[in-house]
């Protein structure tokens, strides 16, 4: 199946208030050895089965760049989960 994952994270220099809030809450769970938490988006995209890997790759880049990530404040990576495992 043609499944692609796009991870979108705030650029490292941009304040991540959510991550900060979670970091601040960890001691309440008894966790005191975490240095930083950053929270971003994970987007799972499923393409039609018929698509070629190249087409999927190209389209995913377009979707990520133009729709999923805001280049002013975010970076993204596109990955095909199957590939890692292979």
């Amino acid at each position, binding site marked *: 199946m043609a499944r692609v994952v796009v991870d979108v994270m705030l650029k*490292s*220099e*941009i*304040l991540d208030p959510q991550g900060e809030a979670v970091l*601040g809450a960890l001691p309440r769970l008894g966790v005191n050895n975490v240095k930083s938490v950053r929270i971003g988006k994970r987007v799972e995209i499923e393409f039609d089965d018929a698509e070629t890997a190249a087409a999927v790759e190209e389209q995913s880049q377009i979707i990520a760049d133009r729709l999923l990530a805001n280049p*002013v*404040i975010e970076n993204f990576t596109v990955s095909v989960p199957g590939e890692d495992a292979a």
Partner: protein
Amino acid sequence: MSSNMLDTVGVADATPDEKQPYAELGLADDEYTRIREILGRRPTQSELAMYSIMWSEHCSYKSSKVHLRQFGQKNPKTPRLLAGIGENAGVVAIDDHLAVTFKVESHNHPSFVEPKQGAATGVGGIIRDIIAMGARPVAVMDSLRFGELDHPDTARVLPGVVEGVGHYGNCVGLPNIGGETVFDPCYQGNPLVNALSVGVLPRERLQTMQASGIGNVVVLLGAKTGRDGIGGVSVLASATFDEDDDSDSRPSVQVGDPFTEKLLIECCLELFDAGLVVGIQDLGGAGLTCALSETAAAGEGGMHVDLELVPLRAGGMEPHDILASESQERMLAIVAPANVEQVLARARRWGLLATAIGEVTDTGRLIVDYHGQTVVDVPPESLADEGPVYHRPIAEPNDLGLIAVDRAETLPRPSTDEDIRQTVLDMAASPNLCDKSWITEQYDSSVFGNTVLGAPHDAGLVRLDERTGVGIAISLDGNGRYARLDPYIGAQLSLAEAYRNVAVTGATPIAVSDCLNFGSPEDPHVMWQFERAVTGIADGCRELGIPVTGGNVSFYNQTGREAIHPTPVIGVLGVIDDVARRIPLGLGSTGDTIALIGATAEELSGSEWAWAMHRHLGGVPPKVDLGHEMRLADLLSRLAGTEQLSAAHDLSAGGLAQALVEAVCHSGMGANILLPEGADPFTYLFSESSGRVLVVIPRGQELAVRSACEQRGLLITPLGVADASTDGLHVRDRFDIGRAELEAAWKGRIGAVLGE
């Protein structure tokens, strides 16, 4: 980076001829020369960064200062004014105990680059100005301008801006009580996001920004300092650092955190109430640079700071980065040494970072050390108060004569009743007049439980004191088209409209804040517009007897050579002794008389009709009569809360037709109208003559209201009756529009265009 790279005062002394990138930082040759004169040497990198920031247009008002002086010169004297221009925000007395502070500020360019965060941090910034005066912020408002509603970029900018304004205000817990939304192609590449905040304080809690008391401690409160918004000084990055520098590390956008801001509000108010701070200043556009130099300059004039104590969010920040950072949600407090522990403890309880970073000194110098080495040693007033002042060239735009004779009164008009009927519907559906609830529903309007009137009322009205019922009303208004035709009259028309909108709630206007959105000050035509607009506001306020208490200037709103319409946005604040007396919007009850106060002339140039139906902008704007506005306000405040008035609504864009459409749509009642004999129906319905209000008078009170009008020389014209059974707009002998058809035209337009 190794310390031997640090550009210290000593290094600057030793290397007088080092070339510095002052031009890239926006400083002119003579400005740089002056800095060298002030210091008697070349500035260090940190000093150069600080001067470039503080002497920028944004911070020094170098192009506008000579004109803004008019406000101080012409302001009427009033005992209400407790703090005025020059403070973070103006403060006016409400009664013997309470005072109110309010201010409007722009965040235009950031909102174009990153609409959500740009607008959000605009709201955050203005809220901190209010806190800095010692006040609890109690409401926000937003005045927005975009390109055409159906332009693809508006689909990007508008939802983001609205989400940002909403997100920040909602999360920080401030009701949004009104604003405006205007579409015009001139704002296509330059959307305007002007945010207002208002706060309330016991009079004795008024705070100053003075760093006074030698030996007092300088405490930085709130968020850590990161690389936000230091793009401007990135030319100062040292060569060694540049190599592992990716584009990431110098973001020009700031991301705000309303949660931290909420904690800042609560913590600062606790500190004020406990008398723990001597002075306080928000960190805004120019970060520590501005806060340190302004507090030092306002106090005894000396301050020493150890910059390495500033808590940082990012690695590899150099002193000038720390000084220039625009990280949000920070305040600077001046605290007596004995109280420092308490201040830190209270901040901890709120989960806020608080750090002592320096102290007030008697040196008369602002000295900043970084790990023991001095990187800044300057007279603080040279940064804060003695920036350059320009008398920019001024020239009347040469197209004004041509524009003035291109009058909208000559445009083809709808002639038959059927055509007029269709025009009412088309206008109601036009972007500037249609229902804005797609936007306002994204804002919390009721948190605090004191909002008596919010959107869609002419002005927002909030209760300040549950026991006495005392409250305030505010309206924000601008009209770029009128200001384009005549900036003096246009600015006064906006002032008159905001004043009238406040009066229509029953409140009495007492003070003004303004946000002046213009093109490039280097363009003499823009400068002419600016000078005329400021003069119009200053003259208008003097005539109305209400002072300008503060405001903001936003220049360079232009794409290439094309400037936006000059757009002064005016905020008027009013006071009402008991909010229960407020006058609502609507049509009262069946049988009530609907009447028009004020005269209608044939004034169509610059009108919404000329624009919406003909894309026409020309001629001269409607006349302003501020004396008339004052009599009208007096009448309304007299009738408010009596049995003589059941509703009122200001007439503005779209004229009488639009006021009736809104009254019907908001009331669930019908309006049964007969246009006065002899009046041209089209003109009567669509002219935008100023100084008019639609009023609804309960049965049996008509004579009393008529005589109250006559006493004040105000024309009142009965138009018809409110009628639940008509349910729609019925213009006798001419046309009928049922509620369903009216609402179909007026509602849902914005959501539909934006794709839902």
